[in-house]
């Protein structure tokens, strides 16, 4: 609950949420942005505002653009990245044995395996862009690829 600490904690509802606690939860999940809380923009909260921005890895500060590269020569289409990516997991449908990637891909799905190779469909929903807090540090696709084909870079 690190994020909550830095909110104004007045439960003023200006953000459209019933409480600051609710706002902080949504903030963590990347559903709302720091700027969606009007009081925070006031000068007296400047310090907290900056702290929050830093915690969440502010987009303005990050001039560089996220790139996820998949090396076609190395990839053998094992599909581990597809299964392990938490975004895929959240939106993919349940199957008899848990959650499985969908074909044709669900609209949030980041990876799919086609023609024996992994393909990055879109990057918008990657947790490194969307999520807050520690979730933003996600790089499991890179960590677990057995052929070391996935590289997360900022260029």
């Amino acid at each position, binding site marked *: 609950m690190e994020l909550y600490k830095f909110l104004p904690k007045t439960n003023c509802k200006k953000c459209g949420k019933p409480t600051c606690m609710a706002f902080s939860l949504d903030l963590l999940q990347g559903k709302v942005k720091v700027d969606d809380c009007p009081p925070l923009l006031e000068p007296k909260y400047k310090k907290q505002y900056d702290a929050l921005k830093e915690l969440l890895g502010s987009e303005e500060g990050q001039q560089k653009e996220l790139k996820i590269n998949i090396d076609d020569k190395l990839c053998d*289409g094992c599909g581990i990245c597809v299964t392990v990516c938490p975004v895929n997991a959240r939106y993919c449908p349940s199957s008899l044995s848990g959650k499985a990637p969908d074909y044709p891909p669900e609209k949030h799905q980041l990876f*799919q*395996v086609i023609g024996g190779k992994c393909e990055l469909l879109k990057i918008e929903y990657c947790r490194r862009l969307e999520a807050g807090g520690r979730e933003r540090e996600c790089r499991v696709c890179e960590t*677990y690829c*057995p052929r070391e084909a996935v590289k997360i870079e900022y260029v």
Partner: protein
Amino acid sequence: MKRFTCSGCSLLCDDIIVQSDGLFISEVMGACLKGKERFDQVSAKNRITSPLIRKDGELKEVSWDEATKKAIEIIKNSSIPLLYGFSNVSCEAQDVGIKLAQKINGFIDSNASICQGKILNKAKSLGINLTTITEIINKGDLIILWGANPAETVPRLLNKVLFSRGKFRMTGREIKTLVIVDPIKTASFRVMGVRDLPLIIEPNKDIDLIRMLKEECCSVDSIPSQGVAGIDKNDLKRLLLHLTGAENGVIILGQGVIQPHPDYNLVEELLELLQMINERQEKGRISLLLMGGHFNMAGFDHVALSSFGVSGKLEFKHNQLIKTDDTLVSKIEKENFDSSIIVGTDPISHLPHSLSSKIAKKPLILIDNHHTATSHIAEVVLPTAITGIESGGLAYRLDQVPIELNKIINPSNNLPSDEELLNQLYRLINQGGSE
């Protein structure tokens, strides 16, 4: 959208989407590279689409009549034919293969016998459970790879057993601990996380590890302080805790542990260790999964069991099943055969030179869909449709679950399926007998 089964390896992934117009395959989704290549085999450059006979040392295209006649001639002139392969064909074809062996008094065996047949029998006698992929996905918490390297052979296995999120726990990788025992740091090691246990063992020292675990089972205190077989004491402690604490562990055995040793039987000792752990465990158990290569590796045993009540090799005399101590290897080694019918495999590449050179000496009929090292030395080559793509049938997955394969496109050149071709040979021999 209809999903097809991939016949690229024994995992038989049944979630593959194939786009095709009935003649060509345009897109394969969900299959790994190995599976995709299986689909590409349809039009590979080494595809054989018409029958071949060796004439003056060269393979020449001939008519089906000429080729089958030649094959029948070889079979008729042979009194102890050897039938081998059958793990890249459907169970239906395996069944006809056994019928044919009975008819021609042959010795028949599948690729599985040189790999895993024995382990299954031993496991059954010790009461060790086999487990299924679904069960590991849903309930598994400990996965041990011993001498197995799925990242190179069964590409999606780790994805399924380790990463998939199960139905009951809804978590995947997080709750599963992976242990790998191997002398070489293989590609499978790369999926390890911080809580996992990589054990690089000194070559040929597996037995020391197993014996130590057997002796010290459940008593962490008496592990030798210098470790065992090059494995550190603390890692051994962790291994013991995992083994004895797992609720639903599975040990996946690969080629590495099936290797013979002059003085002991590694697999047997390993299975006894599992039995010991399972007996002492109160709430959990460790079960077994065998990793095969060819897509219907497991099928032959099931077919042989259901038709003749024995698993593995079969030998026939006077059209009756006889008891035999011979194995495929001893048969070839003693040159106790005078022709061979090879179905869907490449023994010239797979077997040690001392054996392949003996196979090469005798007339060889190859039933396969591709040129391989074996086709280079065959007398007759009878091409067939590719099972799982150009013809259907039943196959057993590596966890012994039967899975239906479908025909997706028509075979090139109207090639017969393995089953049809073997049936035809059987009929031709039958007719000849009554003449």
